[in-house]
């Protein structure tokens, strides 16, 4: 166990102590204890910033399930460190924020913080594991803790719905990702990401290569809410706002991004990888930004905005992966720029989106609503919140002087690069990106101005609004200041975080570089296309924002029945109904049907095997001779048995079955089995008398008024079963391959002191069978007793 292992496990271990905090220190908000966990971890991770983490990653292994090649290997390189910092840093701020947001009187805080810590540990595990299986373990844990956190207010309907939705979608992705990992294992023989990446060259021709990409991306896309799997994210906003800020914008949804970035060295050089990720990313970007505008609920707006921004990051990663493509080696640095933009924007997004969520949380907390139609004019009452939202919102819209501007410019560069180096129709990419940016601008403006400017309608609010306590304002303020600082000093990040992280996404060795990248981010690049695009965004954005009322009607064109949400609901409902129908179709509760299925299976499988293997043989050479009276007896046997079928008389059927039994015992006599004959006789008698005893009360056997079809069906099944079993029997007895072991029992007198071999077998050679047989008999007897008496005594008691 290395320190890093402990770092990952710390939140889990601490989570175990939370219930005790709740019990013994009720008066102090649990958050004050919990906050130390992310804080200390943040400091730990921050201390690694000074090291040259990019070139010498930290790696430690402890074995877990060695047989499956699953080792708990922690691995921290630039990418991992970047994520760890975000997780613990924002984690600290979120816990601080939650101390004010979550009331210690009303809420069950211990569960909240247990889930939160569990999530934190799981997320650290995801970004710091080198072993795919361990990564998967933590991946699913994040889904589980997200599920629990979304349904934190489980009494209400909507959180439960959202939780179920998010779990179903992310776990689905997770399962298929697991399959992808297993494919990877089959191709490379290892679960270690390092080792897999080292063997990257060999697997690209493997037939499983493309399926693997698809499966793994399915996991990443569901987790990162990419189109069309994004539908869970808006519903996840039912979680408490600190959770939305933390899980559903800053960290968990970035796990998919992390995975894509992490595996870029492996899959990056292929066109499939590039196209899938870029196209899905751009569609998500476009659709998310488009849908965000129509949302009246501010959190839903932010959710769609998150979706769209995640699409942006995703598409950048897709474009950046082209750097590894063998045909694009001369443009490698250009594409690398896109990857850098992805990482940079990922960082920025966490900052400004976290800030915005917290501001919305404040609004919600102070006014009691987040409905944009009820809010307005809060500028004068909540100036600090207003300022914070301007910083966050402008950064989101990509305006200077905020960090979002820088990464947005780099994004434009990225899509333009893709267009310039690939075919001409790829112009669609920058075009879609540009339009999406306009939408982004619009919803950012809605977010800021619809809430803070305009007329104030106090009567529409549940509470009288005021600035929240400073503790609540502190976390967003910190985030907002980072947003501003990064704009002016972007290169603070360049060497410490971005460059090492980029090394993990695009290993310099793979690009043929010796010393890695020179990362230098500047705000001013001259009057280039990107700048004009930004200007265009602002221009059209303002136009669209001002004319919002006039064109908002187009959302009405989109029928809710066509929406993905509707599809999801229909899928669940229809699936359940369909399943019910299918189940009812065959699970009729009617014994006859069940038996018919069973017999049909016997006929198909056993009979099929007979026919298929051509075993319908008849070998009468070893047969013993038959005498006339045996024919007579057999035909009598069959006739008597047939009469059971025909008869309508209860008593007669019973007697006929008894007669069948007696004739069987006669056959036992003929076939030299005296013990059997004796037993069969007595047993048959007792059975028959039991039949008579029990069925005195029963009504007359009705003529079976079955439909003819059913009867023919029964007949066919019966003939099939009989035929199959007879055929196997004939095949088997014409096919005696070995001498039976029974010669041994002929020595029964010397071995067991018994002249009667059958009895010797029963009480000595196989006495165990007999012992159990009487146990069976005894249980049956006792069972009969309970069957009859238990109800009786119940009646007597009444």
């Amino acid at each position, binding site marked *: 166990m290395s320190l890093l292992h402990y770092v990952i496990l710390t939140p889990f271990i601490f989570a175990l102590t939370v219930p005790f905090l709740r019990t013994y220190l009720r008066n102090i908000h649990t958050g004050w204890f919990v906050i130390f966990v992310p804080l200390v971890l943040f400091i730990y991770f921050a201390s690694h910033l000074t090291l040259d983490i990019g070139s010498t990653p930290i790696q430690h292994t402890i074995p*877990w*399930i060695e047989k499956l090649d699953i080792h708990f290997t922690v691995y921290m390189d630039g990418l991992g460190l970047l994520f760890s910092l975000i997780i613990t840093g924002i984690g600290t701020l979120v816990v601080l924020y939650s101390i004010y947001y979550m009331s210690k009187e009303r809420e069950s805080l211990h569960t909240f913080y247990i889930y939160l810590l569990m999530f934190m540990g799981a997320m650290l595990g995801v970004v710091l594991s080198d072993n795919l299986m361990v990564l998967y373990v933590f991946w699913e844990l994040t889904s589980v803790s997200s599920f629990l956190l979304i349904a934190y207010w489980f009494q209400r309907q909507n959180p439960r719905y959202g939780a179920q939705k998010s779990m179903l979608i992310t776990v689905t992705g997770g399962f*298929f990702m697991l399959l992808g990992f297993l494919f990877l294992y089959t191709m490379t023989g290892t679960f270690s990401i390092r080792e897999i990446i080292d063997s990257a060259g060999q697997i690209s021709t493997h037939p499983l290569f493309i399926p693997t990409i698809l499966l793994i991306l399915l996991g990443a896309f569901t987790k990162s809410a990419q189109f069309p799997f994004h539908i869970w994210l808006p519903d996840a906003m039912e979680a408490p706002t600190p959770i939305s800020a933390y899980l559903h914008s800053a960290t968990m949804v970035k796990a998919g991004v992390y995975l894509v970035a992490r595996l870029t060295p492996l899959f990056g050089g292929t066109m499939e990888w590039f196209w899938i990720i870029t196209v899905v990313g751009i569609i998500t970007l476009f659709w998310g930004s488009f849908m965000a505008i129509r949302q009246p609920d501010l959190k839903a707006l932010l959710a769609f905005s998150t979706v769209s921004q995640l699409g942006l990051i995703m598409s950048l990663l897709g474009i950046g992966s082209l750097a590894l493509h063998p045909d694009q080696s001369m443009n490698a640095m250009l594409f690398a720029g896109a990857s850098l933009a992805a990482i940079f924007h990922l960082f920025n997004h966490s900052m400004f989106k976290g800030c915005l969520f917290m501001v919305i949380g404040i609004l919600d907390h102070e006014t009691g609503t987040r409905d944009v139609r009820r809010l307005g004019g809060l500028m004068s009452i909540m100036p600090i919140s207003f300022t914070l939202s301007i910083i966050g919102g402008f950064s989101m819209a990509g305006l200077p002087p905020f960090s979002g501007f820088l990464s947005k410019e780099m994004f434009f560069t990225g899509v333009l690069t893709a267009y310039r180096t690939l075919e001409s129709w790829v112009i669609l990419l920058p075009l879609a990106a540009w339009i999406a940016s306009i939408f982004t601008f619009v919803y950012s403006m809605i977010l800021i101005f619809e809430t803070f400017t305009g007329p104030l309608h106090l009567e529409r609010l549940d509470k009288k609004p005021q600035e929240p306590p400073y503790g609540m304002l502190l976390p967003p303020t910190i985030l907002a200041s980072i947003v501003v600082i990064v704009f002016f000093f972007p290169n603070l990040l360049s060497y410490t975080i971005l460059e090492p992280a980029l090394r993990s996404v695009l290993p310099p060795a793979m690009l043929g570089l010796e010393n890695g990248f020179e990362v230098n981010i500047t705000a001013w690049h001259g009057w280039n296309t990107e700048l004009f695009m930004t200007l265009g965004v602002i221009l059209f954005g303002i136009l669209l924002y001002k004319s919002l009322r006039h064109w908002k009607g187009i959302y009405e064109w989109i029928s809710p029945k066509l929406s993905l949400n509707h599809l999801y609901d229909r899928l669940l409902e229809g*699936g359940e109904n369909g399943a019910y129908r299918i*189940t009812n179709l065959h699970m009729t509760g009617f014994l006859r049907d069940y038996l018919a299925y069973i017999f049909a299976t016997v006929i198909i499988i056993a009979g099929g095997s007979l026919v298929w293997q051509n075993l319908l043989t008849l070998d009468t050479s070893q047969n013993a001779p038959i005498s006339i009276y045996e024919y007579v007896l057999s035909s009598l046997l069959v006739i008597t048995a047939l009469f059971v079928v025909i008869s309508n008389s209860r008593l007669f059927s019973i007697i006929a079955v008894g007669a069948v039994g007696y004739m069987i015992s006669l056959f036992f006599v003929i076939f030299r089995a005296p013990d059997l004959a004796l037993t069969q006789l007595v047993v048959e008698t007792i059975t028959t008398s039991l039949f008579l005893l029990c069925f005195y009360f029963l009504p007359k056997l009705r003529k079976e008024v079955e439909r003819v079809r059913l009867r023919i069906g029964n007949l066919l099944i019966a003939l099939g079963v009989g035929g199959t079993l007879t055929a196997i029997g004939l095949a*088997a007895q014409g096919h005696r*391959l070995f001498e*039976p072991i029974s010669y041994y029992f002929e020595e029964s007198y010397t071995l067991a002191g018994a002249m009667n071999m059958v009895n010797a077998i029963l009480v000595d050679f196989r006495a165990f069978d007999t012992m159990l047989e009487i146990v069976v008999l005894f249980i049956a007897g006792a069972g009969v007793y309970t069957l009859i008496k238990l109800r009786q005594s119940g009646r007597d008691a009444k």
Partner: protein
Amino acid sequence: MNNLVVFPILLPLLSGISMFFFRDRIRLQRKVAVNGLLATLAVSLILVGMIAQNGVQVLHIGGWEAPFGITLVADMFAALLLTTASIVSLACLIYAFHSTDEAREKFYTYPFLMLLVCGVNGSFLTGDLFNLFVFYEVMLIASYVLLSLGGSKIQLRETIKYIAINIVASMLFVIAIAYLYAVVGTLNMAHLSERVAEIGQDGVITTISLLFLLVFGLKASLFLYFWLPGSYSAPPPAIAAIFAALLTKVGIYSIIRMFTLVFYHHPEVTHTIMIWLAALTMILGAIGAIAHWDVKKILNYNVIVSVGFIVFGIGLSHADALSGALFYLLHDMIAKALIFILGGAMISIAGTHNLREISGLISHHPALGWLFFLVALALAGIPPLSGFVGKVMILQGGVEKQFYSVVVISLITSLMVLYSVMKIFINGFWGETILSEEEEKSTGRGILIPGSILAALIILLGIGADWAMVYVEQAVEVLVNPSIYINAVFTQP
């Protein structure tokens, strides 16, 4: 010779039978039952240790040498199953103390339970085909009695179907034994293996093996599962739990035993059929599981799904997948017992098994709720719980053997399983608390001890999988090398 091998059969048998002599002294019965099972557990653990050290343990009953008398063979596989079965039945027994009414207790619930365990343990241990049949019958008739014990309408109705189907299955078993005896002329499994290997399992034997597959499939609810959902809904919860945990597993055990020891020569026929049956089982079971809003039904269909999954692992005839199937088998016994116990407690608290009428139980019963959540995740194979390792190994085997479609089916069905059990959790435990503590039909007490034992095992098996894997590996070693088993049977005096 090692007489210890017979004790897992003897102890439940003796304690079960002896309880018939003091019918009205329920407290004494409980003590005897618990002690009997504890002793069984102890013996099983000792057996595990002995086998780990000295290899397969064999007992020739009555001192009659191998193919002629009955042989009990305890290899690691059997010993692991014995241990798990003892733990599981102990947990169910403890739960039964709280959940069984006095009338049922007086009418021999515990003795029958012990005899059921005797049958199950015997089926794991026996090395003789016909003796396996007899043990099946011990187990089955005990299950019939337990199923009908109490004589409520639904119990009677479902027991009829259950018995009818099982008698047909038993008779098919006898017929299959007859065929096999005609061709091969022996009953001892090791001897069968030798003889079948000698002639290389021709078409007739393959056909007979398919008949065996169907017979065991009926018991294991492999595709022929129609009897299961109804009949498992009928009995009291503790009994349903022990049924769910043990009965189908005996069928699976038999499939594994027969198709690794005897009929392993033509996997392209037998095992392929097995895999497709398994796939059908998984699909139909999962469909049934998501179809219902009835706690019992959902859980019952889940039993079916996991059977399909395990048999898929067996059918791959791949050592790793087999270890996975074994591991998953152990996991499933524990998890199924736990989830049935919890489901039973849920139903007894709410007084109904209609999920639409249950809501918000977690506020008064947090332990119940969280145990349920845990086991639900374990069932779906969410790491790091016990279901994960087995699942991964089976899937990996499937990938290596290129049964991609079945692999995808099993993934989808495990999603459906997750959906179905989460449906119970979300609707039953979350939501508005509609019952106040006074209105609840029962306190739900009595789940804590068995529940936490089983839950601890689920976590331990998941996190400590490496430790358990040592034993599973040993078990699989015998399964993939039938000669180890055969040698043990024939060389030990």
